[in-house]
């Protein structure tokens, strides 16, 4: 279906939520008056898991280039596909509760000369298989 010339414009309210989210994050990371340190809850909101990988990778690059630091939470394993744990600037922490209910944060570190699991499994798969921790234990 072809649209008339004057209708070939998608306004922001017509874009899907994921696109708006990505645009918002890019502005946040790139704007000269944007915060140097920010916390972002649920980075994955409204995004296809595969796009999430590219978003994480892009934001990591932008943050490094523009002196930004972001603390990002996500319950979505696909986000891990955009991280490289061999770069010390990109850090992954597993946040969970201990048996007394206290919050614990544990950094996941890998040896520099090793591909995780011989590169047979993605980090996201390792998480889903419980090999990184960070999954409920009381079911």
């Amino acid at each position: 279906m072809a649209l008339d010339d004057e209708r070939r414009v998608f306004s922001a309210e017509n874009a899907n939520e994921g696109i708006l989210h990505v645009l918002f994050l890019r502005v946040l990371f790139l704007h000269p008056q944007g915060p140097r340190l920010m916390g972002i809850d649920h980075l994955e909101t409204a995004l296809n898991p595969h796009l999430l990988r590219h978003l994480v990778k892009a934001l990591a690059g932008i943050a490094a280039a523009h002196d930004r630091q972001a603390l990002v939470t996500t319950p979505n394993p696909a986000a891990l596909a955009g991280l490289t744990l061999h770069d010390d600037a990109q850090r992954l922490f597993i946040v969970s509760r201990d048996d007394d209910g206290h919050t614990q944060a544990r950094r996941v570190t890998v040896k520099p000369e090793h591909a995780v699991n011989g590169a047979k499994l993605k980090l996201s798969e390792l998480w889903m298989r419980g090999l990184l921790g960070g999954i409920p234990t009381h079911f």
Partner: protein
Amino acid sequence: MRVGVVAEGWADCAVVRNLLKAALGLDAADVQSIRPELQTDETSAGAPTARALSNWQLVREGCERWAAIEAHLDDAFEDARLVVVHIDTAECHLSGFDVPRPDGAADDYVTACHDAVLAALRGWTQGRRDAQLVGAVAVEETDAWILAHYAPERGADTGSLLQPKERLQKALERTNALSDRERESIRRERSMLTRYHCLSEALRKPKTLRAAMAHNASLGRFVARLCDAAEALAPGSCRVHERDT
């Protein structure tokens, strides 16, 4: 330290988790169930071929396939890692398990049975990652380990007693270690993970575990092997040898 668990079922997993708390001070978040559940989804777990296998066969399959265990022990991770493989000896005589049951009347029945099944387990894993793989062989059933806490018998190993599951139920009815409310709560609990967590909760204390180990040789051997493996990876991690805390 992170520990992966390969077990026959959720009940065994719950007990092993509590033993890991006592022996190594690990929280539930540090312990990962490799089997049951995490290597499959509900679709593959419900497939006819999966349903046809009994629990010990699935443990054997997990050991022989190896990939899930190897993934947990991946050398790329910088944290110390162990895998506990739990199995009962109750069905060791069956075809496929192929461990002849030692003479039940013999004085060394428990240790002989334990050692024979442990050797079979090592055969399934072909000796791979031996320093990081700890066999948790419960002679007869895991219930016998818990029975050693609730109903220790002077001069008798609870692993040598017949029908430990039924004995444990009877012991729970008369023990003073549980209040009526706790007893009723355990009886009504439908989740095997929660039920056996509650049943073996007392074994989270090193002192209580040490006392139970004295009444069940297979429990004692498992904890000793676990501590040896953990100490080799992270010296000072074993709490069972410490004074009471």
